[in-house]
């Protein structure tokens, strides 16, 4: 389980929406392998009856009313956009 293959690295890069060159795949396979190997030490611990911690404080969900509020305008939302058209974000084609 400790090793990670080049194929896996390519798959993970796709999931993470990262473009990687062959050279980067080579390097990442080595580096991630080393980090994952290091993380294997956690298996020395028996955690079968241990609850996972998702949140360190004993906070309960707090509900509020679902009311609309003024936040930012459409114009403001588009202010930092790399590309926009007719009051909307513009992106390259989604379908081939």
């Amino acid at each position, binding site marked *: 389980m400790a090793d990670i293959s080049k194929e896996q690295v390519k798959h993970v890069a796709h999931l993470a929406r990262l473009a990687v060159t062959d050279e980067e795949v080579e390097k990442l396979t080595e580096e991630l392998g080393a980090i994952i190997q290091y993380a294997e030490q956690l298996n020395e611990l028996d955690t079968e009856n241990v609850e996972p911690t998702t949140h360190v404080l004993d906070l309960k969900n707090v509900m509020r009313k679902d009311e609309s509020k003024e936040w930012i305008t459409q114009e403001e939302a588009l202010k*930092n956009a790399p590309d926009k058209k007719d009051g909307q974000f513009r992106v390259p084609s989604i379908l081939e």
Partner: protein
Amino acid sequence: MALFDHTIKELEEKLHNNEITVEDLVAESYKRIEEVDDQIHAFLTLNEADAKAKAKALDNAKDHGASLFGMPAGIKDNIMTKGLRTTCASQFLDNFEDPLYDATVMQKLNNEKIVTVGKLNMDEFAMGSSNENSSYTGARNPWNTDHVPGGSSGGSAAAVAAGEVLFSLGSDTGGSIRQPAAFCGVVGMKPTYGRVSRFGLVAFASSLDQIGPITRTVEDNARVLEVIAGHDKMDATSANVDVPKYTQSLTNDVKGLKIAVPKEYLAEGVNPEVKEAVMNALKVYESLGATWEEVSLPHSKYAVATYYLLSSSEASANLARFDGVRYGVRSENADNMIDMFKMSRSEGFGKEVKRRIMLGTFALSSGYYDAYYKKAQKVRTLIKNDFDKIFEDYDVVIGPTTPTPAFKVGEKINDPLTMYANDILTIPVNLAGVPGISVPCGFSENGLPIGLQIIGKHFDESTVYRTAHAFEQATDYHTKRPQIGGAK
């Protein structure tokens, strides 16, 4: 004596007595930046015109009643500042000139009339321990510019140490306030998880991130935290717990204080000079009437692996928002949407950020989730339980902040695991969600600062501050200044 050698309280008095003006304070910041910042690179963006205009307006205002009135501050560049460029030291956000809102901490600081001098350098998206992961020129240590200032809030610590600002804000996910504070000889506090709102902090690892102040004195630190702490309806993880007047806890009285010293924090791998400085600090506490005993936090050695799995997993999800659609730098080299995502991210993110996104995506991916992510969450419980148990019998935990003083630029950057190991003494504190501070406690033979870490119970920042303050008042390490650009 330079202006920033005074505490906030002293400067407040000087302003009140018309000995100085806010314009003097702000001018001092930019003068010092002009003198030293080309050597330490603490700032990414300056806010000079606005800051000077604000100083003038504050001087002319009738009402001078605000708790940080006219105090010049630097803000880590992952905290949103309305209309002031916020880059997270990433090329992806190089063009993010016009953030739409202020983080809650900025609203609170502005309500108390601070002056924002500029935005501070950091490791890209707060991932790193040396500032070498900044996509701009990395910040350097004012005590010796061949050495790193620490990270990720390296610019925040360096700017305070060099006297460019009176205080700064940093963020701490695995040590990113305390470690640079230790390396630069200043005071850095990571509050309890949930103590300070993170609304407007660009998220790295949401179950660990906290914002905190970096200052030259414990008193100033307590004063800034008083302002920024508290519940915020815009951050569901901020806790609805009253904020005490931390400055009132600085009683200089630690008689009967029970200190736990984990043997794992002084084990092999901790530099002898650091160990000696911590042992000397314990002697100071003894002389002040506190007692200490050696204890064990047996799961400490698993903290680094646990942290890298959890923080990278959370980062991989948080950084999914950087897709080149709504803001940031979009790649010019793609002709369909998926390639646009991929190429914008690959061109915009640096090596370490990509490495962690990859690790996190792997740890969360189908078939590996239980073995890595869930396993790490379970070990996190064991680490938290270690602290809970110690805090049944002791008031604070004390040890070094870092295993060594600041290392040299280039020394660890090519080996991620060696770099990660540097955070072994700060990471457990984030995993347990407890507060921790670093205060100066000595110098190495070659003149680099050493930090003492004081860790407290959940929401007991008051005891942490009281403990830190008593040590500070009994020693003079916090009065030493780096000689960069002439002593300031």
